[in-house]
């Protein structure tokens, strides 16, 4: 088993305070290993973005972190809790260790600044000693990395296509050679062909540069293809975690199963679309026990009463798998 890069432990995130608050992320434990692509999937509203914002401390108001730890393991030196960093330490940590490519590909670039400005200001902030020429050279390199001609440096965002803009964002994410790149539905707004081009490119870059990726999407079939491991999120909790191949072959949680069959497979024989009946839970009034029970075809006696813990299922020889379902109680 490879080294640990980032450990999320018992993370809880709320929107708002007191009675009216929404628990968007609940007791999430998640581990990212060096160099892997970890996929995070779940229906819209399951808390994926909130998890990503929470672990980088970028939650928009009224989001608050109510508890937990986000332990980062640098290559050298002691592991530390990102949630405990001072503002100054946090600014130095951001982008240098973890960078993010956001959902809103179209709006991630400031329309009034040139591409070059937006690529170089991050270099200037983190490497104040660098010269302007050196920063521009690096910006050119970054564009080359994602296959964009260097003359685009002088362009404004509106002069680029959606795909190009998202490529610029990926290039920008790699500006400081971070160890972790978080991608929150980075290609959702793009057409399928461009999506796959960009993802292919990303996987290639990861092999060359050796960063790990937390890849968030609601499209599980995309993850099965591009990631090493997959975590499934439902109602703010992780409900299953397994290797991509393992999950694809044999999903244990009924929700994972439902998700896998909600999208037509991209490769191989087309399967019937089944989807999942019912709608995602209301975070303000969650069902008792297993949050999925109102929609679960296998719901039985304990499901309504007790929350199933995420753990390695009993009697399963394969390692590195955990699930939160009474059908597969933890050992």
């Amino acid at each position: 088993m490879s080294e640990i890069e980032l450990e999320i432990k018992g993370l809880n995130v709320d929107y708002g305070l007191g009675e009216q608050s929404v628990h968007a992320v609940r007791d999430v434990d998640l581990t990212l290993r060096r160099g892997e692509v970890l996929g995070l999937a779940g229906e819209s509203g399951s808390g994926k973005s909130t998890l990503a914002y929470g672990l980088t401390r970028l939650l928009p108001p009224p989001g608050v972190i109510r508890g937990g730890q986000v332990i980062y393991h640098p290559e050298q030196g002691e592991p530390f809790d990102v949630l405990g960093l001072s503002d100054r330490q946090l600014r130095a940590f951001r982008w240098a260790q973890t960078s993010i490519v956001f959902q809103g590909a179209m709006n991630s670039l400031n329309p009034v600044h040139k591409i070059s400005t937006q690529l170089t200001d991050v270099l200037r902030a983190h490497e104040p000693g660098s010269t302007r020429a050196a920063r521009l050279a690096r910006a050119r390199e970054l564009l080359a990395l994602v296959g964009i001609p260097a003359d685009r440096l002088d362009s404004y965002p509106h002069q680029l296509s959606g795909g190009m803009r998202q490529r610029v964002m990926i290039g920008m994410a790699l500006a400081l050679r971070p160890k972790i790149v978080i991608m929150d539905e980075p290609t959702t707004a793009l057409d399928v062909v461009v999506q796959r081009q960009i993802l292919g490119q990303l996987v290639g870059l990861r092999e060359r540069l050796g960063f790990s990726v937390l890849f968030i999407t609601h499209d599980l079939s995309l993850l099965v293809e591009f990631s090493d491991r997959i975590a499934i999120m439902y109602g703010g909790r992780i409900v299953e975690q397994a290797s991509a191949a393992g999950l694809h072959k044999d999903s244990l949680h009924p929700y994972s199963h439902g998700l896998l069959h909600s999208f037509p497979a991209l490769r191989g024989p087309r399967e019937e679309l089944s989807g999942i009946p019912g709608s995602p839970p209301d975070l303000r009034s969650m069902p008792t026990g297993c949050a999925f029970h109102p929609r679960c075809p296998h719901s039985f006696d304990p499901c309504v009463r007790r929350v199933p813990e995420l753990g390695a299922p009993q009697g399963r020889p394969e390692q590195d798998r955990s699930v939160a379902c009474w059908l597969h109680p933890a050992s």
Partner: protein
Amino acid sequence: MSYLLRRTGFYLLTAWIAITINFLLPRLIPGDPVMSLINRAQGQLSTQAIQSLYVLFGLNKDESIFVQYGHYWAQLLHGDLGLSFAFFPTPVASVIADSLPWTLALVGITTLASFLLGTALGVYAGWRRGSWLDLVIPVTTFLSSVPYFWLGLIAIALFAGVNGIFPSSGGYEPGLVPGWDPDFLLSAVQHSLLPAVTILLSSMSGWILSMRNMMVTVAAEDYVTVAHAKGLSERRVMVSYAARNALLPSVSGFALSLGLVVGGTLLVEIVFSYPGLGFELFQAVGAKDYPLMQGIFLIITLSVLAANFVADLAYLVLDPRTRREG
């Protein structure tokens, strides 16, 4: 480029229309400006004198309207706006030239100061919601909702008059001769302070509010979150990602208020009897001084157009999206 040409063409056309309307209006309205001057002279004018007055005012009945229009343009291009009735025979152009600097100095500087100060406060208030700056907003909003007339009179009652520290009217000490000497300048500044502060108080809240609201909107934009995620300094994110974009909608508002500077803040100048263009217009209306009114309106119209043109240029510089070709 072609955008710029189109805008230039648009403004030239509008200016032409405005000038033409300015030519036609006195010829269309019932009543006769020369008659009103003659009435004032109470029959002491000979027929010949009356005829020469008509010629003087460009209202020569013997010429066709097209010839008159040609004369009108020729005069205009020489900076000749006709003769004032009230200050007869002083040319309108020199009456305006006397009062325009006062207005430009007082209203121009305060408009600029109000915009800069209000916008800066709005930036901070929007960026740090919930700080003490939020208290500024109800106060300035209250001040701007007080009718200006009132605000001015209260200011005069409190700070001017017999016991006050500020003079209550005029642009300078009556005994002084306008010029670039310290006595006169000091007196001019002293006279302008009270009106300037009242203008600031009543106009600043608009800038604060609109900038604050835009800051709040822009702060939620993805590119601002990205800027935070990049670990840029708080200041850099606030200025160059949030405020820079939030400023755009204010630019046209600012241009408009700059255009209105020339008209003077009529009320301000009336309340403080300030020798500016607005006060001049007020007097011209009272005296039925048509050529002067016409001249002032023309200046106001053209300056509003010029300010809008400048706003378009500013947009071109500030927002690259408007630079789109085609």
